[in-house]
């Protein structure tokens, strides 16, 4: 187990590193000019441009820029800008080009919003999806089952942002049945926190639920036709125990894999949901930083998403080995 963890963490770090290099490289391959963006004016005086470049460290060689970035991550670094020295302790993600704030602070601010959003939606999509999927699997072939499968297909084939936008528009603005999205820290006011998230949770959760209905239905249909399910029924176990204990346990294994990766992906920024419901999460930050060529922020968000992804992979593998005794972590 220790050996497994050690090996996995090393491979995870290398994945994160490669992702950073790739992001950095892509940023400079594209014809981007953060300094121009900051300067703003169309006819930015060249010396002003050079000044900004120097201030941002963009005048240094590319490799140097990257190594300084890494150094900051691991050991912290000191920025000198216009004679002012600023200490940035490790893990230092640098300062935003755009508004000169520490990227770490910006991420810290955004993260709780995204985590709140994703956690709620994840609970909905897993519980509702698996429950409905299992029920459908048990009744497979019936009219109800077919209707369900068709309707999940229809919902999934509409682009997500259209569904989300429509719901937001109709149910929170034209006919305000549901509360509008709004960020309040749960520590300040749990009630307001919930109220502000109900609609995005439902939208993000339920739309994704349709996929989970299909995954878990498929997985359950398969596990219900296994020989050991027949054995369980032959023992005299009730239908309920057979379905929700014996069959569900194996059926969950593939569902959990997809779930882990989905959650990681959503944590990296549920861009549409955050935008439509006006939640100041990571996704919004990603959007803004892209528009502004704000390299430190882009790097920061990429870093955090790749960490989420590798962590999710690791967690899925560990959960796997807990559910399935045949899987040994090695």
């Amino acid at each position: 187990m220790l050996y497994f963890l050690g090996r996995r963490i090393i491979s995870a770090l290398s994945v994160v590193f490669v992702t950073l290099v790739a992001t950095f490289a892509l940023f400079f391959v594209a014809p981007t000019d953060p300094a121009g963006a900051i300067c703003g004016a169309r006819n930015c005086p060249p010396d002003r441009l050079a000044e900004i470049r120097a201030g941002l460290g963009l005048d240094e060689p590319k490799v140097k820029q990257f190594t300084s970035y890494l150094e900051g991550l691991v050991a912290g670094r000191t920025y000198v800008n216009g004679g002012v020295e600023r200490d940035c302790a490790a893990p230092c993600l640098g300062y935003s080009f755009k508004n000169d704030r520490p990227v770490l602070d910006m991420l810290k601010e955004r993260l709780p919003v995204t985590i709140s959003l994703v956690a709620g939606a994840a609970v909905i999509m897993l519980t509702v999806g698996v429950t409905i999927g299992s029920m459908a699997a048990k009744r497979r072939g019936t009219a109800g089952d077919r209707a369900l499968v068709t309707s999940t297909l229809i919902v999934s084939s509409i682009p997500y942002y259209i569904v989300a936008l429509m719901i937001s528009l109709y149910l929170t603005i034209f006919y305000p049945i549901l509360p509008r999205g709004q960020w309040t820290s749960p520590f300040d006011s749990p009630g307001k926190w919930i109220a502000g998230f109900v609609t995005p949770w439902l939208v993000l959760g339920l739309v994704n639920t349709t996929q989970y209905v299909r995954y878990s239905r498929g997985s359950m249909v398969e596990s219900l036709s296994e020989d050991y399910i027949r054995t369980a029924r032959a023992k005299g176990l009730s239908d309920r125990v057979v379905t929700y204990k014996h069959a569900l346990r194996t059926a969950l294994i593939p569902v959990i894999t997809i779930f882990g990766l989905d959650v990681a992906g959503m944590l990296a920024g549920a861009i549409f949901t955050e935008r439509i419901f006006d939640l100041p999460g990571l996704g919004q930050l990603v959007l803004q930083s892209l528009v502004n060529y704000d390299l430190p922020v882009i790097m920061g968000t990429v870093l955090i998403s790749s960490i989420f992804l590798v962590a999710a992979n690791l967690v899925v593998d560990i959960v796997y080995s807990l559910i399935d005794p045949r899987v040994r972590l090695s």
Partner: protein
Amino acid sequence: MSDTVRPIDQAPSNAETLLQIRDLKMHFPIKEAAGLARTKKVVQAVDGVSFDLKAGASLGLVGESGCGKSTTGRMITRLLTPTSGQILFKGTDIARLKEKDLRPFRRQLQIVFQDPYSSLNPRQTVSNIISTPLRVHNLVKKGKELARVQELLERVGLNPEHHNRYPNEFSGGQRQRIGIARALAVEPEVIIADEPVSALDVSIQAQVMNLLEDLRRDLGIAFVFIAHDLGVVRHFCDTVAVMYLGKIVEQGPREQIYGAPQHPYTQALLSAAPDLGTIRGIPPKERIRLVGDVPSPIDPPSGCRFRTRCWKAEDICATQEPLLEGKPQSTPGHAAACHFAEPKLDLTAATA
């Protein structure tokens, strides 16, 4: 049902020796986590197998599941590269040949698999399945492929009109015939038949066995016939090798192996086969019941590998590995790997 009963021709004793297998070994490395470190172990799937196969002959390879029969077959056809040992095909050692140099030999050595369901690509038509090896080996002119496929289908007793069908339109026995036709397409000299009838019902099994016999007699193809059914092996093979845990424990002419087996494991195997004879008044044969399970090939017992289940085992069995050798009383070609080998008669049932 044909009523003409034809004896199967024994392979002529002066026939050319096609295959010489010498001390063939296959050790699969496996990795296991053990705390912080990782141990590397090996599965000794096949550990020193030797035999000869003459043109037109048929050698039976029997033994329990996991004893290395399929692995041996796969090495001979070079679907696996042996860890060590030699596979001499007409004098050329093909055990370590590179893929490029191997090609002419691949044609000569064909394999038929056990599972008639998974061994055929369900998305290819029968015609495609059979003609692929023809094309790979450039054995047929363009435009003549279909004719050859139909000829082969007819040869294995299938309707040549069915060449455009997919495997799922055929029954298990018919699929096995397709697999055989595919092997025959390249006119091989040796066919490794890995449990070709194990998945079939007894009535269908007999149909396929007869087909194999025809091929052997009419085309002179030599067979390595892998099976765990002792009855079909006795029917089809003139020599039999009994394997246990990666090694051949007894080998010899069919009459000797079935009539006077010397190795305790062979004796147990024969006596365990259920017997139809008793019901027709033939006195029941002696019963030998093995206890326990086959040990793991990762960590096989020292000395004689059978000793953990052997009722004759003594101290020497744990320390000294018995060699596969002829005993003074044995007929030529009959060898057993046991310190206390001793023929036991009357173990074979009328049918088994």
